[in-house]
């Protein structure tokens, strides 16, 4: 199967060998052929996409546009797109048509991308397997019986299967990097605050960060360039200049220091995955980097810390879904209280309810200090661990996930096992750092991801390491065999 990168498509658009309409039609066709099996898309917006493509072709024909003009792309269905269904993969928003565009959507549209549709995800981004979606699970193209990871599973699979060259995602505890690893694509999450959260439906406000799923780090750099920057509509958005990420991709790794946290190589790590990571580290050494052992002593507390902080925030963030002003409403309730209860009972799935309950509990009078405050303290300790490491290394590298893709349904009834799948990614969100996952080989035919973590606002470093690694390897070019649905 042929998959082409943004960089390749952009060149083809410029030399006139393809048109945006042609590329968009290809994407729409591939989605039509494969989506029944993969279930990567919730909404396909054919007419709007073709109109955008024609507009992009007109710009290109007049010699204008930039590297993203005319490139088809899919948005995770957590980003509000004006006039379109934005469901967050929840029954609660199954009828919600957004009256406005998210900043990410606006920025990418301004850069000329063509939005072909909205991708499937875990409900409200809560899940690590894409099985909590109201619209059903997404299948991993490497093995249809397995999960592609989550919550940005639809985006990861859309890219892995070549339905679109790239897709947006969000990462609250690993929701870009983990599905990227399990689906065999490149996933990149910038520093918290680098990309505006405006219009991105909130799960856990202090952790949520928009990013991308692509075939290469080079493509990720192009997209983040367009997405990043200050936005007055998001008070937590960084007011700092955006460097030229593409220009940073040429830097040599000679003399660069790679820190490998010993805590990431614990008993929970699949031995074959561990081998792939060591292989990848060896590649980095051949590129001139030195690899050294580092320690993140508090990172072991990441998962419980995360589930307190994220659940607390989500329990409050999701209160607005009450059936009063928009979204699903239980009809015919006989009182206000029963309308609330039935709307939320029927509108939310099990995992979302579990987290709302957990979050409500940890914020309750008498428990706040023991859980929420304690978790905030541990969060600081974890962030300090990372900060200390970056005093002696340029980048931290390790596995993205403990195992390759697991079977659909395998962990659905065991939330703790499910949560542990994010054990290596969660600390990065708690510390607000940029991170990537790049394909680094296979374990029993399933993709394995190498995680690269940079210091705050070290997007260029992470993207360059990923790029240099991809220049030296071809794991990211391996694509799954697809049977038409």
């Amino acid at each position: 199967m042929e998959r082409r990168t943004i960089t390749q498509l952009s060149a083809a658009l410029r030399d006139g060998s393809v048109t945006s309409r042609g590329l968009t039609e290809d994407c729409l066709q591939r989605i039509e052929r494969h989506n029944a099996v993969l279930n990567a898309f919730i909404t396909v917006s054919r007419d709007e996409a073709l109109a955008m493509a024609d507009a992009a072709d007109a710009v290109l024909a007049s010699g204008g546009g930039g590297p993203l003009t005319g490139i088809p792309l899919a948005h995770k269905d957590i980003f509000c797109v004006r006039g379109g269904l934005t469901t967050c993969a929840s029954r609660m928003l199954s009828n919600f048509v957004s009256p406005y565009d998210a900043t990410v959507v606006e920025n990418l549209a301004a850069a000329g991308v063509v939005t072909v549709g909205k991708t499937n995800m875990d409900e409200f981004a809560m899940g690590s397997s894409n099985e909590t979606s109201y619209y059903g699970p997404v299948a991993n193209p490497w093995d249809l019986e397995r999960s592609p990871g989550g919550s940005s599973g639809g985006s990861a699979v859309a890219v892995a299967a070549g339905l679109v060259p790239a897709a947006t995602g969000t990462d609250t505890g690993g929701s870009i990097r983990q599905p990227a690893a399990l689906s065999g694509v490149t996933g990149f999450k910038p520093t918290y605050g680098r990309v505006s959260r405006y219009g991105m439906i909130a799960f856990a406000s202090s952790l949520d960060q928009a990013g991308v799923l692509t075939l290469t780090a080079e493509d990720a750099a192009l997209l983040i360039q367009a997405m990043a920057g200050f936005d007055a509509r998001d008070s937590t958005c960084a007011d700092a200049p955006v460097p030229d990420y593409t220009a940073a991709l040429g830097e040599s790794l000679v003399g660069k220091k790679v820190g490998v946290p010993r805590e990431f190589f614990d008993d929970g790590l699949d031995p074959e995955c561990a081998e792939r990571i060591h292989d990848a580290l060896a590649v980095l050494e051949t590129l001139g980097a030195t690899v050294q052992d580092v320690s993140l002593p508090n990172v072991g507390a990441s998962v419980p810390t995360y589930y307190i902080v994220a659940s607390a925030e989500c329990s409050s963030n999701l209160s607005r879904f009450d059936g009063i002003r928009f979204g699903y409403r239980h009809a015919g309730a006989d009182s206000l209280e029963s309308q609330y209860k039935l709307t939320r009972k029927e509108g939310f799935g099990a995992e979302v309810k579990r987290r709302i309950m957990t979050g409500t509990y940890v914020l309750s009078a008498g428990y706040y200090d023991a859980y929420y405050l304690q978790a905030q303290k541990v969060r600081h300790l974890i962030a300090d661990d990372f900060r200390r490491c970056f005093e002696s290394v340029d980048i931290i590298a390790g596995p993205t996930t403990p195992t390759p893709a697991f079977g659909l349904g395998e962990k659905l009834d065991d939330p703790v096992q499910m949560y542990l799948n994010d054990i290596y990614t969660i600390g990065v969100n708690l510390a607000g750092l940029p991170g990537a996952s790049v394909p680094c080989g296979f374990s029993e035919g399933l993709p394995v991801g190498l995680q690269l973590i940079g210091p705050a606002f070290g997007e260029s470093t992470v993207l360059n390491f990923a790029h240099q690694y991809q220049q030296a390897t071809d794991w990211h070019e391996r694509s799954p065999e697809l049977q038409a649905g």
Partner: protein
Amino acid sequence: MAWEVVIGLEIHTQLATKSKIFSGASTAYGAEPNTQACLIDLGYPGVLPVLNRKVVRMAVLFGLAINAEIARRSVFARKNYFYPDLPKGYQISQLELPIVGKGAVKIFLDEGQEKTIGVTRAHMEEDAGKSVHDHFDGESGIDLNRAGTPLLEIVSEPDMRSAKEAVAYMKRIHQLVRYLGISDGNMQEGSFRCDANVSVRREGETALGTRTELKNLNSFRFVEKAINIEIERQIDVLEGGGKVIQETRLYDSDRNETRSMRSKEEANDYRYFPDPDLLPIELDEDFIESVRAELPELPDAKRARFVADYGLKAGDVEMLTSNREMADYFEAVAGTVKGDAKLAANWVIGELSGALNKDSIGIGDSRVSPRALAGLLERIRDQSISGKIAKEVFEAMWQGEGDADQIIESRGLRQISDAGALDKIVDEVLAAHPEQVEQYKAGKHKVLGFLVGQIMQATQGKANPAQVNTLLRNKLD
């Protein structure tokens, strides 16, 4: 058995910003329902709050005015509860780190005593919308125009010992926020309202009694009545051997009673936590000093100055400084009518305030300008007209008939001070009332007033009263 009353107030004052605390929507009162609510006010998925910096300035201005600690770092927190007029399911407020810490204000009691009331804290928060229950058959309407309107919640120490003190404190805060220009203080529109925490204890006890919270008292009169009725109720309960239950009670002004709204057990657990969508507010000295520079002369200072500069009585000063506009008006009049501040004060407090009240308008909308009033007072001082005629002239000025001189001329009201002319009139009146003249001469001096009245009537009030008195005495004694 004597009881001591303990009262603390939580005052909510709407801050007079053009746009809302976290969105750009207008805060103007009285628009069609839901026409001043943007996606942020509606709590739409994906939207985020952005702090209106003007709100911070106003809160700090208040803090400086009550000599409070201004927090160099304060934090917004979410107060979580479900209600249809609360779109996000939480109210953005402040809990642990409010912007204004401990401060104090002075109140003045009837006997001329002064008392200091502590302010525990003041914090910024957003208002909720309104539920409309009586317009739709069997359904409730929601108007979110008010949702997101900035409020400053001012929490007092339990320092007040009577309903009267509570009202005096509330009036003092009301005066202050209006002096500072941070609130219009309009109670009818809900811009200034309060909850009262009330308890009683036996005199001499140090521990506080169990308190109840009276909700949403939106007039000074209701605050006083509600607190008094609640005090009575609590004392009745305790003297009957019962216990006061900690609860929220609603004041019913129609029945003049308070009734239970919810008990402590039914109270919401608001699950406050720092709002992750908003950064902590960090204030530096430069900012605080720049706000301090905006502080106007405050009521206490103005009061002292009025006593010192104008030699007015405390009671008059209290009236004149009750709001900034009245004080400014008075100073404008007094500045023109040099050396007779007392006359200016009497007229501002008397005729002018009366006319304003009658027309239900504020002093800013007065139909008689300070300059025009001063012109009238000048005519009293130079004895062109008497004080009584001046009232007639003022009334005509109020009706827009022109300035004092025009009216005096056109109506021929100039006082008759010409001794010759008066002398003739006095003689005529004495001749017409021989009976009263006899009575006077027989020692019944009270009839002098009657004779003066007759003379004033004969001159349509234009006679100089002092002169009339002298003339009469000369002729009769």
